[in-house]
């Protein structure tokens, strides 16, 4: 490369830096994606931490249907179901719900439930003051547990949304926890 004319070397350096920069940009897309989804309230990703309930005015004139769905990652032998499939709530009303989980396998397993709200635009208005999804759920072999959820729907929920569907997918994270839980760059 030492025999390259100066202008070649300058341009070459710039182009290589550009390529390396774009490699970095690929990884920068990961936090950027989370930030954008958060800021715009898209993707149906509800907030990952508990919100506080501050005596919100309950809008008695309006009723919103909240539906619950539970999935288990394929290959994971747990039973995981909502105890109630749908509730009618007034926006602002603090509501309790329960999910039931049972470890059907003969091994101690750690589960992690990941919530998702549909329609995606409603996710920002679905507030959980307490949720089992904020923690990992260790269950000994054949053990079962009731998993609590306390939530309220923000009264600012757009008029166009009458039904919110809260879906949980339960993942087996035993291996990851065993090896020291790695959160990955995504969080």
């Amino acid at each position, binding site marked *: 490369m030492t025999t390259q004319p100066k202008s070649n070397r300058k*341009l070459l350096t710039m182009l290589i830096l550009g390529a390396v920069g774009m*490699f970095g940009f690929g990884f920068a897309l990961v936090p950027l994606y989370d930030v954008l989804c958060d800021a715009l309230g898209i*993707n149906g990703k509800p907030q990952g931490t508990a919100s506080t309930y501050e005596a919100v005015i309950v809008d008695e004139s309006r009723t919103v249907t909240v539906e619950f769905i539970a999935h288990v990652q394929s290959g994971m032998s747990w039973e995981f179901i909502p105890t109630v499939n749908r509730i009618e709530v007034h926006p602002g009303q603090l509501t309790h719900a329960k999910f039931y989980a049972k470890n059907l396998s003969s091994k101690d397993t750690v589960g992690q439930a990941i919530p998702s709200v549909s329609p995606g635009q409603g996710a920002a208005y679905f507030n959980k003051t307490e949720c089992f999804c904020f923690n990992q759920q260790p269950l000994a072999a054949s053990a079962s547990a009731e998993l609590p959820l306390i939530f309220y729907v923000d009264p600012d929920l757009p008029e166009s949304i009458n039904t919110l569907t809260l879906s949980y997918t339960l*993942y087996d*994270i035993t291996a990851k926890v065993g090896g020291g839980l*790695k959160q990955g760059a995504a*969080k």
Partner: protein
Amino acid sequence: MSTTTHDTVAAHDDHHHGAPKGIMRWLLTTNHKDIGSMYLWFSFIMFLTGGAMAMVIRAELFQPGLQLVEPNFFNQMTTVHGLIMVFGAVMPAFTGLANWLIPMMIGAPDMALPRMNNWSFWILPFAFAMLIGSLFMEGGGPNFGWTFYAPLSTTYSPDTTGLFVFSVHIMGISSIMGAINVIVTIVNMRAPGMTWMKLPLFVWTWLITAFLLIAVMPVLAGAVTMVLTDKYFGTSFFDAAGGGDPVMFQHIFWFFGHPEVYIMILPSFGIISAIIPAFSRKRLFGYASMVYATASIAILSFLVWAHHMFTTGMPVFAELFFMYCTMLIAVPTGVKVFNWVATMWRGSMTFETPMLFALAFIILFTIGGFSGLMLAITPADFQYHDTYFVVAHFHYVLVTGAVFSIMAAAYYWLPKWTGHMYSETLGRWHFWCSVISVNVLFFPMHFLGLAGMPRRIPDYAIQFADINQIVSIGGFAFGLSQLIFLAVVIKCIRGGEKAADKPWEGAEGLEWTIASPAPYHSFTTPPEVK
């Protein structure tokens, strides 16, 4: 620059007068023509390899039910067919054409970075040896589609996924090095008087393509790296259980993937813009608008990626944004098509093989463009998504688009490369066999897709049987037709009518001012461009 540098360069040139013989000539060569030829041959071998996999796919789909291959092997065939055709056939063919033609078109003696040029070619065979080799290993090769969506490529992928990842890394490094070389050559090595707006359009389109490559190939490298660490090192980029998001994979992939589509078509636009004027014996209509249209397409290509993902549950606003941006691309593309048509208007046209392929390109690529517009309509896309309509669409733009333009380029410049005229009779046979069979192959796929046949599935409902049989017959015929092309090229290299320096009456450009075949070292003293 010091005088010693001059001396060493001169001594170097003397030493290599004529080409060294044997295998070492090809291993060590830094000559742009040698490297261009190797790229083109490599690309053709990959075209036949990927084509053979397509034959397996079409043989399996000849009848409903499973007859020839296991579903898992079928998935490996669709995956590796896609990867080979994109990264092994189309992209190296364009790089090969760039190597051969750009220095001759801008009056430069060689590419700016000849040793890097050697490297960027010679790492490619290793990448594809790894990729194809993984097919024969336990657990099989990649089976998750060329788009390797997570979690198919992470949680559910075969153990050989690491080999896939590294082979994509190598392909990416090769393309980036090739792109850097093209940019440095075009920016620094133009002959005196070769101003920007005098550059042949093939050079312009390749310059813009090279910038796209540098912008997005590293993002692809990042995506495969994330797949690698998610699968083997416990990260959770795309794993919801660890806080990641599989939909994010699609965003990152298509941020690369959509500009990639234009990487595979912009050089075609340059080729067609050289051939249509030559055989219409008129100057290209609207040169400047062609340059601006190419640049606009390149910029817009960064704003449309999510049209591949309309069904992932995006907010309506985003769907509309990506729908309108996608449709906007039809404007600069339309400018190009109308410019080509206007170039032919009242030209004294003749229909030699390169022109036939170029004309077929304009018509058939436009069909592919229109089906692309249909797919861009968000509500319609919900029906077309992941059906054979999509398969028909991208094969119209990539086979009758990119591949036809590469064929046109090969016929157009073969006399310059080999010093012999190719057999016009055989060339026409190749053209007519290809153009008929390719439409029998891909056109009925539109109907299959509209009727709801999903892509990437080895079996189908019985009502699709007749059309699939027609499609498969077209596929076999198209595959066999390409052997005529091989025969034409070999025959042309071995002999034939002596080609004039400028064998095409209407051709323009510096490459026609040097002898045919092009001497091993050309433009050692730069020409004066007026």
